[in-house]
């Protein structure tokens, strides 16, 4: 006769728990992606001020460990170094 005694055994608590862990994960990924794009822009601008570099020849790679991540930047710098001056990024 459990129709008469209603207990809160619905699926909402499961939804709540799933959401919380999911959003924690989403947010860590997003902040990570944002940081990488900021680093990419600033490093590109910095090197670009001193050398004419090609955006297609700049590689950023992040290897994530359990507590830290390693950023590897690979930029091809041509021998004919462009004189310093403002460079569009």
């Amino acid at each position, binding site marked *: 006769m459990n*129709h008469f005694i209603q207990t809160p055994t619905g699926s909402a608590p499961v*939804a*709540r728990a799933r959401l919380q862990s999911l959003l924690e994960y989403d947010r860590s990924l997003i902040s990570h992606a944002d940081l990488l794009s900021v680093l990419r822009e600033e490093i590109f601008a910095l090197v670009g001020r001193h050398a004419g570099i090609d955006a297609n020849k700049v590689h950023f790679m992040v290897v994530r460990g359990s507590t830290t991540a390693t950023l590897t930047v690979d930029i091809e710098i041509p021998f004919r170094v462009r004189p310093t001056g403002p460079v569009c990024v």
Partner: protein
Amino acid sequence: MGKVIVVTSGKGGVGKTTSTAALGAALARGGQHVVVVDFDVGLRNLDLVMGAERRVVFDLTNVVQGTVKLSQALLLDERLGTLYLLPASRTRGKEALTEDGVARVISELRDQFDWVICDSPAGIERGAILAMRFADEAVVVVNPEVSSVRDSSRILGLLDFKPLKAETGGRLDRHLLITRFDPARVACGEMLSVDDIREVLPVPLLGIIPESEDVLRASNLGAPITVCGRESAVSRAYVDAARRINGEWVEMTVPCENKSLLTKLLGRRAA
């Protein structure tokens, strides 16, 4: 100078268009001049919900491109007299809307209206970003459902840096509008509660709109729910939300179960 509000959500089908029309009409009912702008280029529906689909000649894209004047594209809702619609194009792609063009049209609308309410397309792509670009405030529409809550969380993140106001050091006022809320299902633990949602999306609550058949009826009839179903609980909830947008303090009530004795005895809804 008017205020620009974007109604957005990330996920589709949560009630952005219904909410845009309902809030716009509720504000206009109070005598303010309101324009609702459909940014959902290619999939426009605001004209249908407003019952204006047969009158659309020119659209937002035409105005942005400078082919026609703003006044030629604006459609008056004669039921209210102070509510206008700027429809989206059904044929031209989103690429036709340039940021500069949209900026010019929004600024023109700001001069003419008290409220400019932009109905954002679903997603987080260009169209949705453009709809929020010139907003002063955002209404994030969310259903008590996991995928909708997740997408709204993403949208709240974008609202932090995509709008021009945020870029220039300001901060958008953000409001949460919970729609399709079913108190009976919440009571029996089958639906996320208001507190569950607010815990994950910590934004001031604008309103809680109960799930109701009246919404479908209004869209069938082609009238904002706050025009054709004025006595309904949904309409009252939207009117309260509009008053809060307007800066009034209105007590927030969570819709409660309205069960008959029979359904209480049975302990579940006859769904």
